[in-house]
């Protein structure tokens, strides 16, 4: 980002290597962050994608396992149930979400109601105990992301359910904090609009009511190791039967 403003030539080089896949993780993240705002870069990337697309045929097709489509459909079912539940519980104390960070009690109440709403839905939930977190924007209460996890699985899946934009020089950082913890722990930087799986191997098992939030941080993440920017989305873990 500190690079001088790009000439058409090196913009095109950057786009070409981005599509080819040879950028480092850091430069890739940088391009991912720029794309929503940089029309010239986006156009260059689009052109490279069309140019190189025929090379996709060099990868031999692989027949998906029979369970893959049902899994996709199940994720979509669960997300739409969560979204409806979040919208249904919007009035009243749901509005106090902004204060969830400090007010564990109201967060728990909201979590329980959300759990109740979800339990009424015929949502297939494989695995022993599943946790679900609907992350909503603190101001508008619009659901933006869903976090899903099985108790036994040492990872969570973070799935976007609405489009969002992040300024080019900023990044979304994902945090979690259980009730007894001293402070939030970073789960890393998140790309807007992209589902991601995050390993939790270094953390204690998920707890009910555990807080998850996404904050806006400098492009390389929070400089202090704790959230420094505004909360974009926030929610607490709810057990789903």
């Amino acid at each position: 980002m500190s690079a001088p403003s790009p000439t058409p030539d090196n913009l095109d080089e950057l786009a070409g290597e981005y599509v080819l896949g040879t950028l480092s993780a850091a430069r890739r993240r940088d391009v991912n962050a720029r794309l929503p705002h940089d029309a010239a870069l986006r156009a260059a990337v689009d052109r490279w994608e069309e140019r190189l697309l025929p090379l996709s045929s060099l990868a031999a097709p692989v027949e998906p396992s029979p369970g893959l489509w049902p899994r996709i459909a199940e994720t979509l079912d669960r997300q739409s149930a969560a979204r409806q539940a979040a919208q249904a519980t919007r009035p009243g104390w749901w509005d106090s979400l902004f204060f969830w960070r400090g007010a564990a009690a109201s967060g728990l109440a909201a979590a329980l109601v959300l759990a109740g709403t979800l339990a009424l839905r015929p949502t297939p939930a494989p695995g022993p105990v599943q946790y679900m977190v609907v992350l909503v924007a603190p101001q508008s209460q619009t659901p933006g992301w869903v976090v899903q996890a099985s108790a036994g699985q040492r990872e969570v899946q973070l799935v976007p359910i609405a489009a969002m934009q992040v300024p080019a020089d900023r990044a979304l950082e994902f945090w979690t904090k259980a009730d007894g913890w001293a402070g939030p722990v970073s789960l890393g930087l998140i790309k807007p609009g992209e589902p991601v799986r995050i390993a939790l191997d270094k953390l204690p098992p998920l707890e009910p009511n555990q807080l998850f939030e996404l904050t806006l941080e400098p492009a390389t993440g929070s400089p202090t190791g704790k959230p420094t920017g505004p909360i974009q989305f926030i929610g607490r873990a709810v057990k789903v039967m």
Partner: protein
Amino acid sequence: MPGYAAAPGLSARSAPTPSCSARMPNRPDPDFDYNAALEQCAAGRRAALEALYRHEGPRLLGVAQRIVRDRARAEDIVHDAFVNIWHRAGSFDATRGSARGWLYSVVRNLALNAVRDGRHETAVDDDTAAALDARDAIDAWHDTRDAFDWRDSAGRIGPCLEQLEPVRRNCVLHAYVEGLSHSEIAQRLGAPLGTVKAWIKRSLKALKECLA
């Protein structure tokens, strides 16, 4: 369900067989309306997403698996990609490129993000790489043969690939098809990192000029 083919038999037709899978053309199917399918996804019609999956799933999974090199991970990528496609179908802009190309870019991006973030870049910096004995490597490059059966790839890019030296062509294909980083290609070819970077840069430039 007008506008796109949703016949359940489509996936069976695209199932690979050992003898032809490597040569299966990956061209747009004129009978399948990718744009209409995305429009229907944006309108909330799940059957349209399933039709896309049945039609393009095996090829998309093939692309993902070649990059992440693990069947289960590749299926996770395709899962995430279709969830993504479902939610973002409304934002697809046909003036920016083909609908089919967009599907591939969603899958490739997820797969590349996964390998770049997960597979920590082998720490071969430019200096170390430059210190490698380039001379020995050059002998090996001269008779590098094609690592890919690229002549079957469709479209105008074929003759343009033809114009590249085999070793440079291999660099481009190792990167695009297998998702290898600069340093992984350098290791694969036994070539200095700086040289591989320069080859790729020049090859992209040559491809662009040839396709212009």
